[in-house]
């Protein structure tokens, strides 16, 4: 095939490997995007992108720095709305409803789609307050005991409760890096979301803390749709069921993790996985 044509072709077309990932065959997709584009001012950051993300599974976005995976992740909970020059085009639906519908309350959306950031950012309040804040503002607790129960459950699910149960009033910032990230995860799950987005959650942590978080992600997978952006292919291989490879704002290839890593169809995917760039 003509290399130029192939180039032009692949820049705007996603290759599914194989034709339908096994994971997708297990149920209806949670998040579906159609022709999503993102512009920062005049610069286009994401080219027309179609992807389906399954529920109760971990999907990993991999790719070199600056390829647009974090930008795309932030579209899913409309965090890009806080950036004035950012324009999002196309359609993203969660459970079939368009999240960019003007009638939709973005605050409610963010309660359904939680986010954990790259650098742990606990509020400068107590551990209890950190986790209780979300449920409180969404009215999820009817009484103080209810609230405390939610906090304790979230901390347990995040695997942090045992370590902090006797100092719930200590400031959230007094914890170690790994503990802070788990606190942020507890905070995210306290509002009972359906989707959890994680933007390179372990990049600021040491290997042991990373391992714990990855363990946690595997546990959470049973109840939530998790999308994780990572620059570590090993992490993607360990943790995810669906992997999507991004390059220069384009979704190059998406498929079952095992298939992507053992038998990538695209040349670029192959190069990236072999470590030839990125």
């Amino acid at each position, binding site marked *: 095939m003509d290399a130029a044509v192939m180039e032009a072709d692949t820049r705007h077309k996603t290759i599914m490997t194989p034709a339908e990932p096994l994971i997708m065959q297990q149920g209806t997709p949670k998040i579906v995007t159609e022709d999503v584009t993102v512009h920062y001012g005049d610069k286009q950051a994401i080219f027309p992108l179609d992807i389906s993300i399954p529920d109760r599974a971990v999907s990993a976005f991999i790719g070199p720095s600056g390829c647009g995976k974090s930008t795309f992740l932030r579209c899913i909970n409309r965090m890009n709305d*806080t950036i004035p020059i950012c324009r999002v085009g196309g359609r993203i639906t969660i459970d079939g409803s368009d999240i960019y519908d003007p009638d939709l309350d973005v605050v409610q959306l*963010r309660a359904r789609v*939680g*986010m954990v*950031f790259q650098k742990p950012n606990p509020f*400068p309040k107590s551990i209890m307050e950190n986790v209780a804040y979300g449920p409180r*503002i*969404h009215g999820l607790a009817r009484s103080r005991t209810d609230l405390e129960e939610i906090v304790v459950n979230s901390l347990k699910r995040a695997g942090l409760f045992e370590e902090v149960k006797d100092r719930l009033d200590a400031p959230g910032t007094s914890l170690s890096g790994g503990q802070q990230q788990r606190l942020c995860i507890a*905070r995210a799950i306290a509002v009972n979301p359906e989707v959890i987005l994680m933007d390179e959650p372990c990049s600021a942590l040491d290997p042991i803390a990373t391992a714990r978080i990855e363990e946690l992600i595997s546990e959470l997978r049973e109840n939530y749709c998790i999308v994780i952006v990572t620059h570590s292919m090993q992490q993607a291989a360990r943790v995810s069921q669906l992997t999507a490879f991004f390059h220069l704002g384009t979704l190059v290839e998406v498929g079952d993790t095992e298939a992507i890593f053992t038998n990538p169809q695209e040349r670029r995917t192959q190069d990236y996985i072999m470590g030839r760039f990125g």
Partner: protein
Amino acid sequence: MTDMSNPIPARAGKSKSTVIDAARLKKRYRAEARFRWYGIAAIGFACAFLVLLLSDILLKGLPAFEANTVTLDVALDDSKIDAGAISKGNYNSIVNSAIRAQFPGVTSRSDRRALPKLLSFDAADKVRREVIANPSLIGTTRSFDLKLSDEADLFLQGMSTDEFDIPVTGSLSIEASGDGFRLTSSGNDFAGVLARVKQRLETRRDRLSLDASKLERVRDRLAAEIPVAEAAVAEAGSEATNTHPAKRRVAKLQADTSSVAAALARLKAQTDELSASIDNHSSAETLTPVLPSYFVRLPEKGVVKIAEIGSDYIIGQAYMPVAATGAVAAGSWSLVEYSQPEADRRINDKEIIWLTSLRDAGMVESRFNWPFFQRGDSREAEVAGVLGGMVGSALTLLVTLLLSLPIGVAAAIYLEEFAPRNRLTQLIEVNINNLAAVPSIVFGLLGLAVFLNFFGLPRSSAMVGGMVLALMTLPTIIIASRAALRAVPPSIREGALGVGASHQQAVFHHVLPLAMPGILTGTIIGMAQALGETAPLLMIGMVAFIVDVPGGFSDAATVLPVQIFLWSDLPEAAFQAKTAGAIMVLLGFLFLMNALAVFLRKQFERRW
């Protein structure tokens, strides 16, 4: 670089670089040390000025905090107080009698009238208040601590004149001479005083010579101009009548010359006279009010003022009755000098002698001047106080705070977080920054035009003053608050949004608490600035003389800086001390506010 006697090292480049490095290192150390010294010098400079300023204010202001009282036995004569109309009793007469009773030797009418002037003008008032409160006192004799007048106060604090005790050795012998006394001493005690007097005369003569030489220069200048003027007259020729400008000029010059000559002659006569006195070391001198005052203190409270002093004798008048003539043993008499001449001070010699006799009898007490903080302004220096200014300042600042803090912080939050970024908001931001630099007096004009003239609000009230100052402080608070909000890391905001908080919730629950220290600092800075502002308040009429302490926000009031400004203009020396005292009170306020700011910052500071 290479040394011929040593083999060239294998890595010549490395050793060369260590030598250069050592030199560079030294240079860097020297530069760092220099910079450190600049810093220390700068701080030292600033501290020196601060110390200078504070010590000057302290020295001038401390007398304002001290009040002297005299303890007198006051006979509450029931012939002067009518039991049915207690408040209308003749308390002035009662108090005057009380003080006259202390000086039985003072007999002349003018002296008896002058004695009560030692007391403060409201001493009688104090007695009246006591009697009104306790009518059973009528007919009794009771001891009262009565306030002294401001001039008496100043003298006792050493602010009117220096008081010198001159050591004496010999025994004194007193004999009557005319209507005064002649005193001689067995020791050579008077020669020293005579020498001091002559020294003062010499200073005076030198000053007069200086004046004379200045006049001589004027005379010479006039002399040079006369020929020129006369030439002009000659030029004018026959048309020159007596009203011609040239002729008038000549006439004026001639008149000036003769008056200068007369003045010079007078000066010369005076300097000659003084020189004669000075040159003759032992000639007697007559003490005039332009020279320091000298007194001889005798036993039994006698005091003689020296009118004429020779090298071994004194002639003088008794200011306090002399008990007896004859011999006075060494050690039981003394000489006192009051260096400031009587002509240059407000308290005269008689008053000084009366005061010192009261003081030496232990009847004068010095205490902290609480009334300074309890009374409002007054034209009488001894009773003027800062309470009016303090309350006015407090009320004004309260209004300023209540207006500027909520509006300023809300505006900052809106502009920073919620306002769309367009031309209009940019324009607003530029204008707020400009307003912060506008001279404060312009806000006063605005207040005058809008609040007073257009809205008709009460003039000189704390309410209007507070509103004007709020306008002035708003830009400061807005700018500081915006900076504090901007300094909150975006990760906190994103964390809040990520949990599903709305923008408003994220700002008020997370960003604002973290920005609090910065906002508070900006507020206290603005308040401290407002506390010290005078110009805008003058414009809205707070320059009036307000005696009453303001009771509410719409009462006429004055503020501390304006009070200081008004008092600094008044001539009495006591008001000078009160000005510095009020400055100390204002500085105290400011220190307190800054301490509060530091405390609040520490409280609200959270680490993120």
